[in-house]
């Protein structure tokens, strides 16, 4: 379990009817457009993570004036990378969706719950996930994952 720090996280919420132009403008700036619902994409410069209905998180500095509401959320999120052969079993104790590899593949992302917390979960490898939670919940997130991992290991 390791902390992931992104220098910049901007939320981008396209104005009504402007999702396509906002995506095109984003692509010009960072080489990535807005990802499909439930998908996260990346290149060497940036990442785009779907974060809900008409809402994306962009890990880069972007300006979408007139196209989308953009808010700097760089300090708002705590992100943990959790990795290992038992990672799906650990998360299965806390998360009510099926994260197994045949169902939740690389680049898939979901807004869901971890315990009682609202989180975003992205598969970033065959045995690796990133979990994003509100920064005020960081200690709870660590505690929940640690307890679940210990319980899986004790079986």
């Amino acid at each position, binding site marked *: 379990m390791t902390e992931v720090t992104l220098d910049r996280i901007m939320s981008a919420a396209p104005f009504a009817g402007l999702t396509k132009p906002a995506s095109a403008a984003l692509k010009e700036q960072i080489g990535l457009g807005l990802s499909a*619902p*439930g998908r996260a994409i990346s290149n060497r410069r940036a990442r785009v993570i779907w974060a*809900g*209905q008409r*809402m994306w998180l962009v890990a880069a500095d972007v300006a979408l004036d007139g196209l989308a509401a953009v808010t700097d959320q760089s300090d708002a999120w705590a992100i943990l990378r959790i990795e290992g052969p038992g990672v799906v079993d650990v998360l299965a104790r806390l998360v*009510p*969706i099926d994260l197994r590899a045949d169902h939740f593949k690389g680049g898939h992302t*979901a*807004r*869901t*719950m971890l315990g009682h917390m*609202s989180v975003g979960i992205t598969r970033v490898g065959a045995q690796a996930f990133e979990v994003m939670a509100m920064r005020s919940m960081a200690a709870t997130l660590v505690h929940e994952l640690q307890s679940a991992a210990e319980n899986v290991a004790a079986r």
Partner: protein
Amino acid sequence: MRITCPHCGERDRREFYYQGDAVALARPAPDAGAQAWDDYLHNRDNPAGDTQDLWFHEAGCGAWIVVTRNTVTHAVADTKLAAMVKR
């Protein structure tokens, strides 16, 4: 109980907040008159059969969803994004 969010797929009920009858999608015109507004604000049917509710995918994508479900069998027949339903 599981609800299929049009964005997120089938999800556990605990991810959703229940708002109530989908009557909110049929808001009367400002000049519709006292009777129409009284019905809109206060009167609800209590059907044995199909009903439409508004559910909020609170711990998911944040979408409001119109759920058609049967109060007798508990079967969910249909889910639509409220944003896509013609008002």
